[in-house]
């Protein structure tokens, strides 16, 4: 479990404390200011999951988008020691993979979105998420919301990015499907990948996360983000 040490009222320091001090952090965020959030500083080590909690509108998605460099945000973000501005934005996002809460598609069937992925890997991912390979050839209008969400997760994992930014990955899923997704996320952690997870499911956070970042709405009187360790 992670140890937490706020360094300043608006500066958060979240350090992995599960005896992994020797390992370099996969992600290092320094003074990152996403939207109206105060500057945040924290690290996520290899194989660890940081959960972000907070009410709707607190800035959870904005923080994930800022880390993925989908929105301009002052501050520095390092992945395995390389700052995001050292590489083109698209190259950064090939390593720092944002998976939206409401995944969008731009093709008639899901298969075209998997065109560049090794077929065997896609089949394994679909199987682990409880999906039949035939779902790839169904018209998207005939694919359910839950299936689309699982397909989007599979789509995000096909090239094995080292850092996953998961925005409510089980928001549209039944408990059985959600359990499969959790198992897949755990497997990613065991494989040395890291994740930042936005979730409103306290049980899920306790099952997956090594540390938690609690965001409160900046609009609330004098509110600033607080850090809470998972017991």
């Amino acid at each position, binding site marked *: 479990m992670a140890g937490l040490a706020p360094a300043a009222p608006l500066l958060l320091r979240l350090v992995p404390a599960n005896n992994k001090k020797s390992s370099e952090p996969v992600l290092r965020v320094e003074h990152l200011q996403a939207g109206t959030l105060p500057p945040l500083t924290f690290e996520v080590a290899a194989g660890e999951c940081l959960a972000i909690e907070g009410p709707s509108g607190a800035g959870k998605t904005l923080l994930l988008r800022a880390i*993925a*460099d*989908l*929105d*301009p945000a002052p501050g520095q973000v390092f992945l395995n020691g390389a700052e995001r501005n050292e590489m*083109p*934005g*698209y*190259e950064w*996002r*090939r390593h720092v*993979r*944002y*998976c*939206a809460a*409401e*995944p*969008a*598609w*731009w093709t008639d069937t899901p298969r075209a979105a998997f065109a560049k992925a090794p077929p065997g890997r896609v089949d394994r991912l679909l199987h682990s998420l409880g999906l039949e390979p035939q779902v790839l050839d169904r018209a998207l209008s005939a694919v359910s919301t839950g299936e689309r969400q699982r397909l*989007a997760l599979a*789509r*995000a994992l096909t*090239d094995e990015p080292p850092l996953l930014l998961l925005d409510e990955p089980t928001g549209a899923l039944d408990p059985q499907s959600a359990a499969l997704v959790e198992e897949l996320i755990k497997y990613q952690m065991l494989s040395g990948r890291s994740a930042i997870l936005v979730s409103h499911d306290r049980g899920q956070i306790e099952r997956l996360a090594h540390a938690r970042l609690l965001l409160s709405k900046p609009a609330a009187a004098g509110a600033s983000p607080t850090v809470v360790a998972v017991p």
Partner: protein
Amino acid sequence: MNAANTIALTPLDLMLAASLLVINAAISWAFGLRLERGIAFAATRMVVQLALVGLVLKFIFEQTSPLWTLALVLVMAAAAGVEVVTRQHRRLKGWQAFGLSSATLLFIGVAITSLGVGVIIEPEPWYAPRYVLPILGMVLGNAMTAMSLVLDTFCETVTRERTAIEARLALGAQRQEAMSGALRASLRTGMTPILTSMATTGIVALPGMMTGQILAGADPVEAVKYQVLIMFLIAAATALASFFGGLGAALLLTDKRHRLRLERLAAPK
């Protein structure tokens, strides 16, 4: 062209033609469209603008000066740029949209008109405003419409497809790849009217320039040759305007980090 063959129109003739707008007003009134004032304003504006441009063209034709011709070219390109911007449902904030459209239309207008007048028609002198300005007007007018359609379609599509474009960007796509669908849709919209026009010219519609030449007494075969030339020039101009308009909008709505920047669009009208 023989001016002696032209039948001069009297003000009464024009007033008779203007009375046809009663039909437009009647339809507007009958269906409650509230377009009556708009029809009157547009008709008055057209008459005033054409009267003024008639006087300006008469003055510039008499001068036959490259500087006067250039001055009018610049004014026409700037006016076309303003028109492109004001036609947008969702337009780019700031001066970029005006800069993009005016500069692109000026470049296209000068390049295509130079090809048509300087290389193909070869009048004497090469900048003869009697040839340059009407052809530039037709080229600019059509390029302006194409660019306007492309920008409007592109901005609407990108706004509507925002989540899909960002999903592709999040998966590591470059901006041109993520926006390729919106770009294709807008290019098709910009380039389709001239294709339709070319396919139906002579069957469904007789083009204005050719009709004007024939009414002014020109040999119909010569008028057709000019019309064919103009149609090809317009086709090239609309293709270039569509391409540069779409490309420019794609660049202005993203940044060098390949992020979508829809906040650069003003609120829809």
